[in-house]
């Protein structure tokens, strides 16, 4: 039990990692719930990888990596909507094209750059143990905006998830809210990649929301439960990284996915017991 608390008491870097991780978990819960409900996982995952060339270029040019990530996400979204609108190809194909292209561009940029601090492993897996209070303040500000916007748009988002035609009929522009949702996913990815990297950030978005969706059905409770599960996973993941000497970012995401499967199994059990009756 002490292993869950002690590492955080006298290590400031653990406290910063916990706060930064929980901020990501809260934002991821708000956005992730809609990603899970609307089946937007593929575009979300693609966004997470699409930021790679942006981040790499920003590091080489000496610009803030957040800026590069934002540019990468914008190119990704613009590219996907261009392909889907200007060809008869499905959205899936468009996403796959952009996803692979952006990932490859990122690897090419990194392979020929001489950046002192920018390298592929860091971008892919993040530096949750290297978060500074300055990073956290910025993350906090962005998190507030994202959560606030989600709260304001919760009704149209909800309608969009369950009944897009109904949403249109009620006067909400489905395409506008779809674009807003994509933008919010992009912001969440950009916000989170510094802590857990572009490879793992999507686990943060999907896993707690999916876990919550197994248990509760109202959107508000899903977001709340996803947030709680996400924060607990950050806590347990960091503690496990400390106790068992594991890579920190990966531990967090691993715990989140484990939590999902534990809940999945747990929801299966009662049914078995009930069946023979």
């Amino acid at each position, binding site marked *: 039990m002490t292993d869950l608390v002690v*590492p955080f008491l006298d*290590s*400031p*870097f*653990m406290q*910063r*990692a916990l706060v930064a991780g929980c901020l990501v978990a809260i934002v991821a819960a708000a956005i992730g719930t809609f990603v899970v409900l609307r089946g937007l996982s593929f575009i979300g995952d693609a966004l997470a990888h699409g930021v790679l060339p942006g981040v790499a270029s920003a590091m080489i040019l000496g610009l803030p990596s957040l800026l590069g990530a934002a540019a990468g996400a914008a190119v990704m979204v613009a590219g996907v909507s261009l392909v889907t609108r200007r060809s008869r190809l499905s959205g899936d194909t468009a996403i796959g094209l952009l996803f692979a292209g952006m990932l490859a561009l990122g690897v090419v940029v990194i*392979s*020929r750059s*001489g950046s*002192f*601090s920018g*390298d*592929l*492993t*860091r971008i892919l*897996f993040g*530096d949750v*143990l*290297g*978060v*500074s209070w300055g990073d956290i303040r910025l993350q906090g500000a962005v998190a507030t905006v994202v959560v606030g916007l989600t709260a304001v748009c919760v009704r149209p988002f909800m309608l969009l998830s369950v009944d897009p035609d109904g949403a249109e009929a009620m006067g909400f522009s489905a395409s506008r809210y779809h674009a807003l949702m994509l933008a919010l996913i992009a912001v969440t990815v950009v916000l989170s990649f*510094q802590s857990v990297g572009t490879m793992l950030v999507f686990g943060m978005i999907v896993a707690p929301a999916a876990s919550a969706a197994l248990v509760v059905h109202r959107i508000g409770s899903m977001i709340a439960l996803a947030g709680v599960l996400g924060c607990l996973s950050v806590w347990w993941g*960091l*503690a496990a*990284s*400390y*106790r*068992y*000497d*594991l*890579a*920190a*970012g*990966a*531990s967090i995401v691993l715990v989140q996915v484990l939590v999902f499967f534990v809940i999945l199994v747990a929801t299966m059990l009662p049914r078995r017991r009930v069946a023979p009756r």
Partner: protein
Amino acid sequence: MGVANQAGQMIMILVMRYPAFRTPARLVAVAVAAALLTVLAACGGDDGGAATGRPTVVVTTSPLGALVRDLVGDTADVEVLIPNDLDPHDFQPSVKDAERLARADLIVSNGAELETGLEGAIAQARRDGVPTFVMAAHVPLRSGPESGHDGEEGHDGEEGHEHGASDPHIWLDPVLMARGMAALAPVIEAKLSVDLRDRPAQQRARLAELNARLQKAAAQIPAARRKLVTGHDSLGYFARRYGFEVVGAVIPSLSSQAEPSAAQVGGVVATIRREKVPAIFSETGTPRAVAEAISSDSGAKVVDLTTHSVADDGSYYTTMENLMTTIADNLRDGG
């Protein structure tokens, strides 16, 4: 041209199968795109290299490249494969790099799993008959730090040789390098058919002088302050030669590519505080943010150290002296 034929057939199949491609305008677009890509791929085909008529030695890393250049003088051309500012642990070769390896008269690599990304391309060149010289095979290697290293005593002693990986950072010890270069000189003369005359002896003398200067500089640092915290475990040979103790690393691994765990970072912070180490020496490939976090929690400052590349003048000797000066300056006045 088989490729061109295949491409032509592919286009024909596309045109016949998919109505969209039958419209002439689209067909033209496809053809233009194909032509553009071909031109792009063919661009930059001729690289400067060679043409001097001298044999070419391709060396993987810049520190080894500097030493080989120093050894061969104008008897051969020396090409360094991994750009000076890149992390050799992380380097992936391009097709052009593979071609340079295949055309070399001799390949000199560091080995001991330093250039993991290059191993395939070097093995291919070796199969094609290019002679190779692996430096790590000619010097005694030390094994890496104990895995599960948590900064709790147990340094020194070197008794734990059972641990697998060998430390590849041999170029950071001039005495080892004197040995390795002595083994390389006859190979160069045999494989390139050149006469190095008294160059090997001169280089041995220069390396011995360098070692003497470094010994002297290290002696200026009080013994109690000769404690190193590095980006990854890169200074093992250097520390052993000049009486330092490596007490911790941002990434306690022989490669810069490992991921730090919370336990490791916590261990390094604790070690720095306990041992009152004034500086964290950050290297190519060190996660800057983690180094800064350890710095802010432990009070030690982050100092950039050139360990995997060479100084601006391209000299191995300058590089090693700069390395010692940076370390000495930051350990002497800190603490």
